[in-house]
């Protein structure tokens, strides 16, 4: 398994996501409504020495990917870490239509003619043929289209999907996901979870290795099930050759100061941190504080 970047620049700050305050989320959403403001922050991050970006396949990601593709020579050294899918798109579609019509919509309505023909050929039978694996592969392809041509290092499955399937305890889906990401995208499979110790145990039990596991990781145990002690223990006994661990929500949505947060993180057996910030000072300070 290739080694992942130890600092990755996240995207929550750009899309009005703040787990602590809806007001703050709203303010950020307004600020970054103009995509040029997003590019400016990326440039600050790259100038601060960051060489990796995690970007969710939300409705604005396409435009961002286009920008970086068009300026590829300038950004040739940047590694990309897509996270898929954009959960709210599916949540709303499913609420409106039901699960199967929603999947059908995503696969056959939201795509250009070229893409649809290819997908129909491959998966025409999947929709009718009840093959979850093929269906999953088709959905991955839909989500991954926007990242084409970028240096994709790892592909992450969002926690709502990972944890749902983890609860179902279906080994085959995890196995096939990982294989597909490795073979089709030549990338490291990644799983985002809010249940890191449990997922790690299950993957070991199923002998699914060479995976990046990304989870909330902060000293107050926010969004960490079952608790912070279990996370520390799981990380301490983990072999990074099998599973690289990536921490997100390190500041617990701002409940912990950066200094305190990274004093804790730097002492954990973690291989990578993904963080988001929008000011030059915050970005520079964070990069300096992370010494994993």
């Amino acid at each position, binding site marked *: 398994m290739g080694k992942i970047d130890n600092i990755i620049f996240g995207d929550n700050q750009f899309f009005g996501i703040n787990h*602590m*305050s809806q007001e703050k989320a709203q303010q950020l*959403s307004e600020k970054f409504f103009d995509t040029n403001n997003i590019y400016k922050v990326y440039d600050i991050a790259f100038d601060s020495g960051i060489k990796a970006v995690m970007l969710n396949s939300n409705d604005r990601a396409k435009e961002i990917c286009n920008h970086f593709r068009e300026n590829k020579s300038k950004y040739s050294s940047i590694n990309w870490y897509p996270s898929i899918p954009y959960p*709210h798109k599916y949540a709303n579609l499913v*609420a409106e239509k039901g699960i199967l019509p929603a999947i059908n919509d995503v696969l056959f309505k939201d795509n250009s003619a070229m893409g649809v023909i290819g997908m129909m050929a491959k998966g025409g039978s999947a929709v009718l043929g009840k093959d*979850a694996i093929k269906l999953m592969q088709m959905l991955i392809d839909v989500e991954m289209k926007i990242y084409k041509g970028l240096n994709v290092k790892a592909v992450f499955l969002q926690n709502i999907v990972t944890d749902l399937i983890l*609860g*179902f305890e279906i080994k085959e889906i995890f196995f096939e996901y990982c294989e597909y990401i490795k073979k089709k995208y030549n990338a490291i499979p990644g799983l985002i979870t809010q249940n890191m110790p449990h997922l790690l145990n299950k993957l070991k039990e199923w002998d699914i290795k060479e995976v990046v596991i990304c989870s909330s990781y902060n000293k107050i145990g926010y969004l960490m099930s*079952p608790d912070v002690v279990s996370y520390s223990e799981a990380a301490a006994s983990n072999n990074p050759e099998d599973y690289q661990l990536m921490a997100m929500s390190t500041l617990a*949505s701002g409940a912990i100061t950066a200094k305190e947060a990274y004093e804790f993180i730097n002492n954990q057996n973690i291989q990578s941190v993904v963080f988001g910030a929008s000011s030059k000072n915050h970005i520079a300070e964070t990069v300096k504080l992370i010494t994993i």
Partner: protein
Amino acid sequence: MNTKLYINHCFMSNKIKLSIVGFGRMGLTHYSIINSRPDVEIESIVDTSPIVLTMMNKYLPIKTYKDYNELFETSKPDAILVCTPPNLHYDIIEKAFRSGIHVFAEKPFTTKYEEAIRLKNLFDSSELVNQVGYVNRFNDVFVKTKELLDDGVIGKVIRFKSEMFSCTITKSDDASGWRASRESGGGAIFEMASHAIDLVNYLIGKPDKVVGSSVSQIYSKAVEDAMSTTLLYKCGTSGTIYINWSDPSYRKPTNKIEIFGDKGRILADQHSIKIFANKADIEHNLREGWNTLYITDIFKPVPFYVRGNEFTRQLYHFVDCIQDRSLNNQCTFEDGANVHEMIDKIFSDYEINGKF
């Protein structure tokens, strides 16, 4: 349940055999969550879709039924989770009662107040655990808000405003599926306002009178997309509810309540509680003026997380209540029926007073 009691149950009692009736979005979510309880064994699922059943048969070690009658005729689970379209709830729950099965029903509980009352009365006459899926009652912020209100932190409640917004329905579509008709339990009042109404019932109490109700259609053809109403109490308290599920300015569903009392004011949403205390309150660690409790200050982690702590806590509570009958259920069929009483009053107020 405390840890010791929980472990005792895992070793001493047989596993609770469970069936999930209706395997759409909520059925899937509940399966994933409750499958993490060591004292629960999911035996079967019921769904009308052959694609869903074939797929689940392929990957899960469970029985599948395409008709719930078949489930009740051929097996007897200890408990069921009812996640079908709401218009089917009554028949399923009534049959479950006849078989002596504990029931967790998704919201809205039924589509008619009379049916809700009948089910409440049936289960009240038995020892069977009955719960409705008003998940806000298990949300860290709203549980804390309830605690603060019950402790009298803002004194007597005088006014409140409960609001919910989302971008669930943002384009016109052909009116199909159960969500497109009120008879089958669709529409923003059954699906969304029911949460806001239950939150008011839970935090402040059931209102005595409904006035000034209005409903709006924005994109939907046969059901409403927005609703507002005013709720009055004999004690003098009053408040409003406003919900809108066709507002694209909200990236994800938002739920907030503002409560004004004679000793202060509380603003709560899924992320935080802001408390304005007219005077410092040492017991609750509140200074005079504004205080903020963030979700990071008040959250309690759950053993397994799928879709928010409250979803796990809600189902674990259902199982806890089956394991330990001395526990009081936090969201019973009576609570579900109370929501329908208010929904009926809102529709009727709008029909009588709101139309030209």
